[in-house]
């Protein structure tokens, strides 16, 4: 009985969650005649794969893809690394100014992005990072939320682990790298996913920083497909599906870090 309830709830939520994506997928495979058919059909009569090649060719998808991939790889790596280091320090140590640094981390989460880009752009320009992919990545390599996330994660680790390791004469970097960070694998995986999504889906900042079309990213490209002069809903849907799939793949890949057993064998 309990299982029925459990699966019932899940199915309900999953349906609600998946439904728009199904609609999107359906639109991306429809021919123009079926787009506005009423009542709306979920499964198209005729599968039209041309929407995908059309989308791919209507904007320089290939270039945008490469740029997005580069940006994402560096953003995620830097994000996770820096956040893990900082979270580790904030969670496990007492030192002068710890409160203050934590306040800074917190404050950085509160800053409204829409307006901060103006002074930020000026700084980036002065550092000669304008119109480069580095200019897109570096300003957001350290992220308040990421650090906060890792801090909370490190806080969950029992004190005994630390004490045992230090008694064994473990150095701090090793404590971090070999012992504690691996225990936060699930959080790091989550952070990696979120960071991926953030970098992959970012529209505003890349747009402000970049000027050369060779540097533009996927989101900018997707946005270009909806304009006055070019406005093909089915291509846009196909383009959107293409941008979603890599994220889902990364998500599924990261799932393995959620295996339980993180504590198995680490006990005294």
């Amino acid at each position: 009985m309990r299982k029925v309830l459990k699966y019932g709830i899940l199915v309900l939520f999953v349906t609600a969650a998946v439904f728009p994506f199904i609609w999107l997928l359906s639109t991306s495979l429809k021919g123009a005649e079926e787009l506005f058919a009423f009542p709306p059909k979920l499964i198209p009569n005729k599968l039209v794969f041309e929407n995908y090649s059309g989308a791919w060719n209507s904007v320089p998808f290939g270039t945008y893809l490469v740029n997005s991939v580069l940006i994402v790889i560096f953003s995620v790596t830097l994000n996770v690394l820096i956040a893990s280091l900082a979270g580790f320090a904030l969670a496990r140590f007492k030192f002068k100014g710890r409160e203050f640094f934590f306040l800074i981390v917190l404050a950085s989460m509160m800053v409204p992005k829409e307006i901060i880009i103006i002074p930020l752009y000026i700084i980036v320009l002065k550092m000669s990072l304008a119109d480069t992919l580095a200019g897109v990545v570096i300003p957001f390599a350290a992220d308040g939320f990421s650090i906060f996330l890792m801090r909370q994660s490190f806080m969950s680790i029992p004190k005994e682990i630390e004490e045992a390791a230090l008694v064994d004469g473990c150095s701090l970097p090793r404590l971090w790298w070999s012992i504690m960070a691996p225990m936060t694998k699930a959080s790091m995986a989550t952070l990696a996913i979120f960071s991926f999504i953030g970098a992959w889906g970012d529209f505003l900042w890349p747009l402000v920083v970049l000027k050369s079309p060779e540097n533009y990213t996927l989101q900018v490209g997707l946005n270009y497909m909806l304009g006055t002069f070019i406005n093909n809903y089915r291509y846009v849907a196909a383009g959107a599906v293409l941008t979603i799939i890599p994220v889902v793949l990364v998500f599924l890949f990261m799932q393995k870090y959620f295996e339980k057993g993180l504590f198995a064998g680490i006990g005294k």
Partner: protein
Amino acid sequence: MKNIKLAVVFFAAFLMLFAGGCAKKTNVITLEFWTLQLSPVFDNYFKTVIKKYEAEHPNIKIRWVDIPYDAAVQKLMASIAAGKPPDAVNLSADFLSKFAGINALTDITTVIPRDSLYIYLPNALQSCTFNNKVVALPWYLSTYVLLYNKAFFADAGFTEKDIPKTFKELVKFAREYKNRTNKYPLFWNIGKDSYLPMMLESEGVSMTDPEMKKATFNSPQGITLISQWVDLYREKYLQSESIMKPGSSIAEAYQSGQVAMIFTGPVFIKRIKTNAPEIYKNTDVSLAIVGQTGKHELAVMSLSIMAQSKYKKETAEFLKYLTNAQNQLEFAKLSTTYPSVKEALKDSYFVALDGTPEAKARVIGAIELPYADRLRKYLAHPQFDRLRDIFDEAIQSACLGKTTTAEALNQAAEKWDEILLQDEK
């Protein structure tokens, strides 16, 4: 060991991210030119046009940057704040007014002789003039036509002679259509970026007095005219989202078959063809709906020289080139818009019918073009966006039944007066 190798590769790749963004120093002048969402559709056009210009002017290089409409303002503001704005920028009517208001644009007549401006349509040039300063060169234009669905009309028992030509006829027709078919007659943006001010102006009721010191849209005639539309909404002759959706989404309702007609620019026909070929097949074109004065709206896209530009003369020369008859004609053919140059409009392209709705719209629009005007006269006021928002809110409030039409308009007029009486800054 493996970790170190990985780190080195990582770092090397990281350096790759720094590529780009460096300019070489020579005595070549680079002009930066921004357009609004014209890429990638017009990539070839611009590349060809620019190449030709650069060949004829070896000391000039044009850097073309296209920006999506969505974040255009933010990107432009960021560049201005950083002291690195473009030399030339393509602006829509709203942007033009705003930037003119903060004195961000150069008066073109200070850089090129006034008589070189005579090649442009006078009404287009007028739309680029603020406070007697010509702050932009008019570029591509659009005006309005009526797109309607022949099949829906026939189903409802209407023929061509029933097609409304004036706003008065439109109101009557809307009621008649819904009464017969129980479907919505048209979609019109009355509550966000409302078209109603343009309707008023077309009917001869100005939004303000000529000096722009007092609001006059709440005159008895103004209230009567607006009430007609508010009543249509309240009595459910218009979709409830008519007070919310802006003019840019006007095609949605039509192409999904929800409404029988829309009043918009010919440039939207292509979109209808791409997304709803069935509807496109049944689409026909009629004259723009006008009021007593017979005037209708002109939408102008223009090109300005930013005041911070170091190369005003060179930029002006380039802009003149871009807006010359030949280049504009070519662009018009690609884009379903109109050139702003008298010469180009004489081309047979704007007279030839070929049975498609695009051609018909083009021809009709071309005939109407000399009589189109910037009906939103209050656009010339530096705070026009506040005025627009106040008016929009008044309409929404009246339509939702929160106030009567008269009350809403009177309150809005009061607020307008406050702003209009404030002097600059």
